[in-house]
């Protein structure tokens, strides 16, 4: 085979990608810089990480974010999966409309969703804090899991399930023995995506978090409004590391038998 010639368009692709990753790289590099405020390199240090670990309020925010991510992810995984399975089997005339309703939370701009939650929760008199955060995050996590699972379901050969039914399996048995194992990777990768979204969310959390409960992004937001500090660099690097771990996990989970990875997130096949 002839080696492909170098094309000038590659240069453009590289330049844009470089620009995309430059700020992220900067955050990581400066989290190891010994100097507090200067741009000049003053030697390698892990001091900022040490400081971060001993910062009680930061660790508190980290804990909150993890609890929030795991619980909203778990609740929405159940609701989203069951919903996608139900919708795939149904032949309602109103299917399209119902699907639009399910997708509503990610069609509305985030800021409006945040304000809607704030107003409605205070109308209901719910105390702002972890409960309101979990409800809000569950609401916007459901569509992600719903899309991914729905996409996977569409790719399943229906005859397998029908064969199981013909052989006498109950509807329940068919779901647990056939459908669930087939869609399990999709549920997991959808959940990881939802978890990442929950871990990243600033706008919606900003509105529904109480005065007492901080999530990690909210904490970072209030700190960087005051300016640049190396401790925040360290914290951001930890968040990046967490995210990359999620991406790797999701990539490993969505590998098909041929070893060809499915696109890690928002995949096009979902709507087809």
């Amino acid at each position, binding site marked *: 085979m002839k080696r*492909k010639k170098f094309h000038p368009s590659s240069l*453009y*692709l590289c330049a*844009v*990608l470089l*620009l*995309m990753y*430059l*700020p*992220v790289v*900067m*955050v990581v590099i400066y989290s190891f810089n010994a100097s507090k*405020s200067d*741009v*000049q390199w003053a030697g390698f240090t892990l001091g900022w990480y040490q400081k971060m670990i001993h910062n009680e309020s930061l660790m508190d925010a980290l804990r909150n974010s993890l609890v929030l991510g795991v619980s909203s992810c778990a609740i929405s995984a*159940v609701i989203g999966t*069951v*919903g996608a*399975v*139900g*919708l795939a*089997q*149904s032949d309602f005339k109103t299917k*399209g409309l119902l699907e639009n*309703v*399910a997708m*509503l939370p990610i*069609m*509305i*701009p*985030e*800021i*409006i969703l945040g*304000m*809607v*939650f704030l*107003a*409605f929760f205070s109308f209901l008199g719910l105390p702002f804090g972890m409960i309101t955060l979990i409800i809000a995050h*569950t*609401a916007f996590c*459901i569509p992600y899991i719903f899309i991914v699972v729905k996409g996977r379901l569409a790719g399943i050969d229906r005859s397998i399930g029908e064969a199981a039914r013909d052989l006498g399996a109950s509807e329940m048995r068919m779901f647990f023995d056939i459908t669930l194992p087939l869609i399990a990777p999709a549920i997991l990768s959808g959940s990881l995506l939802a978890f*990442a979204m929950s871990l*990243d969310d600033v*706008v919606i959390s*900003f509105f529904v978090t109480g005065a007492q409960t901080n999530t990690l992004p909210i904490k970072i*937001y209030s700190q*960087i*409004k005051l300016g*640049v500090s190396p401790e*925040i*660099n360290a914290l*951001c690097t930890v*968040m*990046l590391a967490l*995210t990359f771990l*999620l991406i790797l996990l999701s990539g490993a989970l969505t590998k098909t038998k041929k070893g060809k990875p499915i696109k*890690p997130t928002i*995949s096009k096949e979902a*709507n*087809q």
Partner: protein
Amino acid sequence: MKKVKNYNWALVLPIYAFTILFVLIPLIYIVVLSLLRKDILWGVTNEFTLQNYRKMFDPVYLRTFADSLGLAFGTTVITVLMGYPFGYFMAKLAPKRRAFVMLLVVVPFWTNALVRIYGWMIILRAKGVLNHLLMSLGLIDTPLKILYTYGAVLLGMVYSLLPFMILPVYTSVEKMDWSLVEAARDLGANAAQAFLTVTLKLTLPGVLSGFVLVFVPSIGLFFISDLLGGGKIMLVGNLIKNQLMQARDWPFGAALSVVMMIMTFAIIFLYRKLTHSSDLEEFF
């Protein structure tokens, strides 16, 4: 058969119950709230009024709307100019490389938007990386003011939303029927003509999809203008945030949200009319 149907209803019930209870009903509540009169101190009265909507025609607020739409428009134009060639070239790469570049474009979706904006603060601030570089190259004597300007906010917006333009363009270029371009060339069109009359037309749905995905969020990303604009650049997003958190004028905040929501749905409706598609399927 009847039994299966009931069973399906039970399965889809939770997702609709949750979405209707916590998203649809609250949305309706916001519309009602926007029509109520604000109490003198805070809270609302039970009196209906259109005053909250009238208030938007105050020149101060009209200005905010104009600025915000201007910035959203600028952001969209730049992302098209940058993202179209990117998506186009990407679709023409060899499959292995294409998958790798796709991974690199998708990763930012997962990483925290704040962290990436913060990276720009490190680069752009007065004592930051860029000024340091320019000064050591002898190009400038005193640090330039880049952070906390309109340009910085525009940069942050473009930077954050660029992947949302690249992906739909890429998808539409990838699934395009290249034989049509070849046919145009065979019939005597030069490369530029073929691109303008065939390729661009066929990939327009992707561009439009990208337009929706960039334009809509850029009205509301208040934290970018807060962080990179230093609070001096007021967008509709910031205005809504301030009405809720500082001014405590919830009915006005609700009215602003309703207007923004109508704008959003109008854009999505227009997109569907133009492309005859029911979804932003270039993307999802």
